């Protein structure tokens, strides 16, 4: 409980200061609505916002799944074939350093106007791909050289080396990659929806755009609050899963 006190106090102080400033300085509500107005919007618009949050979350989760399959699969293939590794690396880096915003219009065209959610999932998956791919690649090379020697000594096959040594050794790297990727998938989904600029996907980013166009600033803040909560929730869930799995992996947790 004591751990939660300082952040709670700080947030409360900020909200009170914000509310007081809005009232005392007579700030126009479309410039900066007081937190009370945001709270009212949160309550009245809850059904719309929660539905939008669910859409954004499900697009991000689909993107994470695709990125995970592609990232792990490609990393595994590169680990088995050094030539493929050298061939793929520059492309993977190029995909990472190209801003997602710049390629978004292309994906929107490919997905078609009726299915912007496909473009959004694809773009978020591209953003989430790199941390998973590079984590898996590094992880598959991370086995203790001494252990590699032990496998040499007892004549392990390539398959045994992969399943008994390199895959298990890569677990912490994979988990870390997925944790970073989960956050990026949400960011990617939001950015892609902004760029798609269409309401058809019905995500949180669209709600923010829509409210902005109507100067419903309180609703923009409400949507932002939901987005922040969504990010925190996902981060917390992935972090908890990572800790549990790591404890199981290292045999130090209650899971074993």
């Amino acid at each position, binding site marked *: 409980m004591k751990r939660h006190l300082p952040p709670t106090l700080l947030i409360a102080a900020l909200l009170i200061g914000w509310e007081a400033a809005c009232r005392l300085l007579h700030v126009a509500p479309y410039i900066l609505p007081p937190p009370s107005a945001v709270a009212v919007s949160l309550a009245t618009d809850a059904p719309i916002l929660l539905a939008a949050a669910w859409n954004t979350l499900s697009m991000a989760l689909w993107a994470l799944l695709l990125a995970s399959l592609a990232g792990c699969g490609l990393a595994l293939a590169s680990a088995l074939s050094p030539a493929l590794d050298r061939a793929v690396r520059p492309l993977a880096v190029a995909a990472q350093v190209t801003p997602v915003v710049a390629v978004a219009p292309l994906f929107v065209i490919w997905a078609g106007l009726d299915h912007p959610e496909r473009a959004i999932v694809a773009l978020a998956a591209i953003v989430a791909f790199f941390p998973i791919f590079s984590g898996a690649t590094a992880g598959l090379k991370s086995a*203790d050289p*001494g*252990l590699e*020697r*032990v*496998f*040499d*000594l*007892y*004549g*392990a096959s390539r398959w*045994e080396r992969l399943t*008994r*040594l390199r895959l*298990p*050794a890569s*677990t912490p790297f994979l988990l870390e990659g997925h944790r970073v990727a989960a956050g990026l998938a949400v960011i990617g989904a939001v950015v892609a929806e902004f760029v798609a600029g269409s309401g058809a996907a019905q995500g949180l980013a669209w709600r923010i755009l829509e409210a902005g166009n109507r100067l419903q600033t309180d609703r923009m803040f409400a949507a932002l609050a939901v987005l922040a909560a969504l990010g925190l929730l996902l981060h917390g869930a992935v972090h908890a899963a990572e800790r549990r799995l790591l404890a199981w*992996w*290292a*045999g*130090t947790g209650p899971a*074993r």
Partner: protein
Amino acid sequence: MIAALQGVTADYGKRALGPFDLALNSGETVALVGPSGCGKSTALRLLAGLEAPSGGGVVRKVDRGETALVFQSPTLAPWLSALDNVALPLRLSGQPAALAREAAATALDRVGLSGALHKSPAQLSGGMAMRASLARALVTNPRLLLLDEPFAALDEITRRQLADDMLGIAAELKPAVLFVTHNVEEAVYMASRVVVMTPGPGRVAGELAIEGPLPRPAGFRTTAAFRKSAEQVSEMLATGMAAA
């Protein structure tokens, strides 16, 4: 003779070892002493058959599965229990899990870890992890046991305990042991023969037979014979350094 290096050289860009000669007889424990970077570990890898020399010949009258290695760090797999870590060499040699585990439990018992079978490496102290690593090497009943500075990372008390346990195990199982170290007193204590190397590229700087029974009786470190042997080995090291 069970394994030998005959005028071997090793080059990694430049000469790292040799020409170097070393012969191991079955059942004897030989210590290899030399300054850092002289090629001690390379000599050990050549004997293990993990690398081919750039010149000279390697004689190995043992099969792959009859050779075992212990490194300076325990190199245990963190995702496996102590028992499964020790069973690993047998599993890689194609033994069924139940048999491998049974042999692993016996090996862990031999190194005094029968109470830690199901602990993970993270739950073991440095000394215990090293013991598990030793058990992993012993589980195949090796005829050639190669130890690469196995006690270097341990504190003095643990190191002495492990040294005595190691000697007891060697006396019982009688493998040929090559014990690589940079510690002169440890070399004299552990071996019936000490081979001293020059700085890299390492050659033989000298060799000394160590008197006295193995395993060592209590108080062996304070005997005049021990002190004299250690001094002689130190002198060989110093001469080798000066000549380089």
